[in-house]
């Protein structure tokens, strides 16, 4: 057997059924050995116990390692032995016991040989497997060896590269050293700049303190138009140690009036402003000035404060509306050469003071104006309110008082007709008619005027109203709105509105009253009421088949006491009332009409949310 055969997969297990060649070999061996044994043992020597072992053919299986073949042959030979012993062999040759013993021994012999061969096959296979594994491991190891060799080469290459990089790093490190030194220098520079900045910040903080003091004084409404008295404190700190005293003063005729000071406690607040005083000179010159050492200028005086005597002074004029009106002074107990920077500071302080004083003065003027104006407005409002209340009361009273004589007029007219009617001639009766008609008209006028004044004055609380139910109730209670006098159609889908029930009743009774009144003689009034909801509003239309109104007159119909036709009864208040009610409920009323084409009054109201209870 070659190594190739040993490595072949069929050497490790029984040949697969699909390996046709191997299966054919198995069948051939089986057929040949069984055939040969049958020929020799059953045909040629049927009555002889042949010593030749059945086991020999089984040894083929050591060459063609197929356990299925092995056991097939064992079974076949055992079967043949049994057949020969019990069927073929002449019973006269051997006893039954001998025959039975013979076949049993042969069967045992076959089993032992079969088992031995089986074990040998199994062991061979195990060996082959191990050999195979070792060979595979060997191959793997060889491959790893090659790989490691390759990696080794690579590592060598990398090591070289690293060495190179190391050199570069060395160079870079040197460079960095250099840069670090530069950075150190820059840091020192920065430190210097920071120090400068801190100085600047400190100054800006001091300036801010001054501004803060000024702004705070602005918020204090009580003080008058001058500067806050503590303004010199931040001013002093702006001069950081160089100033021993400071003062802000304004000119009051020929005297100083000190607005604020520091370290000048004993300085008289209204010192005379002599021509030799430094403040007077600065104000006269209108520019910033200083004296380095006052000892060199005994002719010039500066404010004094008891034990303190000052050697140096810096001052700038204080301006208001472009006019010099005071002076800002900084004093020192030692001679000082004031810098350009300090010039700028004192001028800046002066400018800020000017700004604040102007602001305060403006604010005072504004407050004064406001007070005057507020008082006036209040007075006028109160007068107006009183006037309106008086007017309302007057209109109510006069309308109300008109009722008493009217009552008498109507009463006596009726009494006259009742008790003396028979004595009147036709003309007298017609005069009485006219009196009664006029009185009735006046009654309506008063009623309408009172309704109008009530609507104007009273509150109209709004609530959801089922307009359809309200209108149906109205129609049911007025015979003039029912058949056969009139026909009123109310749409089923009339939306609910947010309104005042009493107001709505008055509004629609007026509109319906007009709709059935203004029809040509002989025509039966037909009124349609329908509406639609648009977002938060409801538009309801009252459309009639009456005489209509000329568009030129549309604006006038809603005006109080405007009557368009003398042919129809009316007070001229109804539509004014309708308009007023709609407006009081947050709505409006408009008219669409042409003469002879009827009127469509559109009432817009607020829509009710949800359903009406």
């Amino acid at each position, binding site marked *: 057997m070659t190594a190739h055969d040993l490595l072949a997969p069929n050497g490790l297990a029984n040949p697969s059924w699909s390996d046709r060649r191997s299966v054919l070999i198995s069948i051939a061996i089986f057929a040949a050995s069984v055939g040969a044994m049958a020929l020799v043992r059953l045909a040629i020597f049927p009555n002889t116990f042949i010593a030749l072992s059945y086991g020999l053919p089984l040894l083929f299986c050591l060459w063609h390692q197929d356990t299925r073949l092995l056991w097939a042959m064992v079974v076949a030979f055992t079967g043949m032995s049994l057949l020969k012993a019990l069927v073929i062999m002449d019973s006269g040759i051997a006893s039954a016991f001998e025959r039975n013993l013979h076949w049993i021994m042969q069967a045992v012999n076959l089993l032992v040989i079969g088992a031995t061969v089986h074990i040998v096959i199994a062991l061979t296979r195990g060996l082959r497997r191990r050999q195979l594994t070792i060979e595979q491991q060997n191959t793997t190891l060889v491959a790893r060896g090659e790989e490691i060799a390759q990696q080794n080469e690579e590592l060598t290459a990398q090591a070289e590269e690293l060495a190179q990089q190391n050199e570069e790093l060395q160079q870079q490190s040197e460079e960095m050293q250099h840069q670090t030194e530069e950075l150190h220098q820059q840091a020192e520079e920065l430190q210097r700049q920071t120090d400068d900045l801190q100085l600047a910040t400190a100054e800006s903080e001091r300036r801010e303190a001054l501004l803060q003091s000024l702004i705070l004084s602005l918020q204090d409404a009580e003080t008058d138009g001058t500067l806050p008295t503590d303004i010199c404190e931040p001013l002093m700190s702006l001069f950081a140690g160089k100033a021993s005293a400071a003062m802000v003063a304004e000119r009051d005729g020929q005297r100083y009036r000190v607005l604020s000071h520091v370290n000048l406690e004993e300085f008289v607040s209204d010192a005379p402003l002599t021509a030799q005083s430094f403040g007077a000179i600065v104000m006269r010159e209108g520019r910033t000035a200083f004296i380095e050492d006052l000892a060199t200028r005994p002719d010039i005086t500066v404010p004094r404060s008891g034990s303190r005597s000052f050697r140096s002074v810096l001052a700038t004029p204080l301006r208001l509306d472009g006019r010099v009106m005071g002076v800002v002074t900084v004093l020192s107990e030692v001679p000082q050469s004031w810098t350009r920077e300090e010039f700028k500071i004192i001028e800046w302080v002066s400018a800020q003071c000017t700004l604040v004083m102007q602001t305060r003065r403006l604010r005072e003027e504004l407050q004064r104006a406001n007070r005057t104006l507020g008082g006036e407005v209040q007075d006028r409002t109160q007068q107006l309110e009183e006037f309106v209340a008086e007017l309302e009361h007057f209109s109510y009273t006069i309308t*109300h*008082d008109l*009722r*008493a*004589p*009217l*009552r*008498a007029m*109507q*009463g*006596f007219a*009726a*009494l006259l007709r*009742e008790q003396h009617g028979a004595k009147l001639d036709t003309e007298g009766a017609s005069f009485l008619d006219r009196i009664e008609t006029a*009185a009735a008209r006046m*009654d309506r006028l008063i*009623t309408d005027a*009172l309704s109008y004044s*009530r609507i104007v004055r*009273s509150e109209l609380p709004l609530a959801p109203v089922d307009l359809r139910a309200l209108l149906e109730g109205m129609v049911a209670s007025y015979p003039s709105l029912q058949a056969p006098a009139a026909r009123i159609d109310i749409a089923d889908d009339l939306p609910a509105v947010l309104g005042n029930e009493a107001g709505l009743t008055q509004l629609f009774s007026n509109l319906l009253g007009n709709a059935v009144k203004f029809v040509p003689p002989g025509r039966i009034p037909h009124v349609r009421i329908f509406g639609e909801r648009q977002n938060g509003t409801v538009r309801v239309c009252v459309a009639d088949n009456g005489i209509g109104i000329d568009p030129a007159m549309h604006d006038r119909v809603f005006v109080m006491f405007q009557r368009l036709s003398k042919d129809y009864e009316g007070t001229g208040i109804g539509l004014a009332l309708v308009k007023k009610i709609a407006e009081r409920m947050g709505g409006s009323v408009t008219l669409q009409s042409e003469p002879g084409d009827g009127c469509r009054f559109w009432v817009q109201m607020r829509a009710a949310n949800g359903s009406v209870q």
Partner: protein
Amino acid sequence: MMRTPPTVLYVEDEADDVYFMRAAFEREGISVRFHSAPDGAQAIAYLAGDAPYDDRTRHPLPTMMLLDLNLPVHSGFEVLEWLRGRKEFRSLPVVVFSSSGREEDRERARDLGATDYVLKPSSGMQFSGVVRELRDRWLRPPTPPGGQPETLHTVSPT
């Protein structure tokens, strides 16, 4: 036994209204002793029995009082206020009879203890309807127990 007719005191400054009220009682055949006072002060004097009303045979205490609101000297409201402090008039029905339909007037009258509030009709001849109502509600002796309405009742003008 002859029943004494009830006494009605009508406080009213309009002589025409007094005339129509008296005529209305006569026209409706309602037998009453009808007295009137032309202003609030006189009404109070009548009720208090001050001169010239100190003779109770000539000026008997009323069974019912009709009270206008808009009166000279003392208004109807002042009369109501005066009445409120007096126990002896607690059972006297006081019917306010005014042409004011203002809700605030009604409320004030009710708060001051008015028994009823009747709106004056626009014609003197319509007082007849008012007196019929008054008779049915206030002048039918004896008043059945619990028959007095608790709430204000308004007679609408026709």
